């Protein structure tokens, strides 16, 4: 059964230095509040896993928390580069970062394999791509039935997966809807899981379009974090802050500007008290 914790206690209890951590959400429902709490607590030496690192991993990498990054597309969607990621890869600032680079298809299949408790994922991929030459975790096998050469990648099995969702009920079951990404697979693939939610409701609504419901016994901890996906969005609650995604380009381009922004908006700010009160209610 999932435990209701404050965001601070949930992150402190579930995310440990050196962990392989997946904070997932495909453009929608990116768990920024939880990621910011990881930054505030300075939990480092992490292997960060995410299909699209987005601004959140740009921030975590820029703060020096990541030893390694497993990813498939590392840009600022519709804007351009992730400058902190680039600085780490190109110039080793604030520390060198190892990268394990995949395609989207590979990451999606690898999460699904993790959820299915398989050691690896097999799919038709990486044909003619140099990625296989630079990533030893991309290999090929022959299909035992047809002889077709298929790509193989290890299953993703994070120590902890963190996602943001719209609602949890009082039993700790979780509902997310809209663009649901790889969150279900990432949760089921992980040893521990933390879900931040917009709100706790008496009962999950019935008949939701395209809803993913995760039973309480698949989730380690739930923390209430209204607005916890901003500047990403939560369908039915608030829209994506596109202007912020553009502004981030200038903020993140310069190391000092970046550090000043993080101090003013993340590390110098306590986890909002309202979240803690809500969770304890």
């Amino acid at each position: 059964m999932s435990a209701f914790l404050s965001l601070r206690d949930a992150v402190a209890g579930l995310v440990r230095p050196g962990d392989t951590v997946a904070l997932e959400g495909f453009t929608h429902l990116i768990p920024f509040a939880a990621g910011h709490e990881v930054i505030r607590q300075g939990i480092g030496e992490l292997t960060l896993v995410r299909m699209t690192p987005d601004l959140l991993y740009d921030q975590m990498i820029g703060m020096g928390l990541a030893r390694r990054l497993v990813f498939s597309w590392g840009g600022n969607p519709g804007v351009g580069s992730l400058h902190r990621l680039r600085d780490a890869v190109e110039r080793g600032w604030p520390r060198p970062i190892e990268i394990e680079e995949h395609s989207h298809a590979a990451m999606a299949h690898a999460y699904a394999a993790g959820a299915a408790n398989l050691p690896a994922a097999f799919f038709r991929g990486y044909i003619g791509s140099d990625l296989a030459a630079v990533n030893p975790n991309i290999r090929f096998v022959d299909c035992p039935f047809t002889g077709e050469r298929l790509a193989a990648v290890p299953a993703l099995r994070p120590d902890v997966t963190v996602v943001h969702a719209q609602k949890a009920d009082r039993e700790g079951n979780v509902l997310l809807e809209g663009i649901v990404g790889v969150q279900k697979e990432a949760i089921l693939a992980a040893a521990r899981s933390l879900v931040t939610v917009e709100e706790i409701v008496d009962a999950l609504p019935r008949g939701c379009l395209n809803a993913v419901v995760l039973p309480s016994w698949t989730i380690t901890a739930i923390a209430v974090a209204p607005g916890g996906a901003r500047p990403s969005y939560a369908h039915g609650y608030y829209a994506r802050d596109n202007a912020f995604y553009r502004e981030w380009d200038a903020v993140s381009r310069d190391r000092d500007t970046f550090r000043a922004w993080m101090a003013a908006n993340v590390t110098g700010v306590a986890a909002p008290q309202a979240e803690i009160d809500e969770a304890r209610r």
Partner: protein
Amino acid sequence: MSWSAVEMMTVSAARALANDDVCFVGIGLPSAACNLARHTHAPRLRLVYESGTIEARPDVLPLSIGDGELCETALATVSVPEMFQYWLQGGRITIGFLGGAQVDRFGNLNSTVIGDYARPSVRLPGGGGAPEIASCCRRTFIVMRHSRRAFVDRLAFVTTLGHGPTGRERRALGLTTEGPALLVSDLCIMRPHPETKELQVTSLHPGVTRERVIEQTGWPVAFAAAVDDTPAPSARELEVLRDLHARTAIAHGVDAAE
């Protein structure tokens, strides 16, 4: 009515799409081209975005691949693993739109690094969905702005297979899909030679000379036996495209990507 080079590019790409196509759409120019086609000559064109939205019918252009507008207007929204397993790998997509930082004469693409992989001079965003879009869609369209930096003799890194380093690799690798069938730039339209698969100029946009294309291409560019003049954007095409961008700007409070 005057128009920009980017508008010419978008209109050219849109014209290549047909009513019965199922299109795997990327953000930016491909998305503008697909929605322009849907609002003009191909109202039944089916748009699939990698965030899982199938038959999305957005009224404004999305700024990210996973905008809420796509989900709200889609016939169905599936998970990302399902999108890549059943829909892309399953062979349900007829056209994949691709771009990159660099393209070579056989339509191979680099979107990974400039320089050495381990210590790159420029770290690019990476392949995302492209490596499998390139192999699984029935054919692909490439959309890129023409320049010597982008149209190169030799790629720094092959992220995404086109027709292969010599133009003959697709069949050798067991692929039955066509690969790059069309490249639209701001100067011209290129299509692969039927036998060699080398991209050659088949149409020049209004006002563009052969010399300009030669100058902006990093390999000795070939021209088809008959080179057409790309028809200028019609008043209707421009009106629909500009309306789309205007609606997008109002909805997002910022300009669209392209």
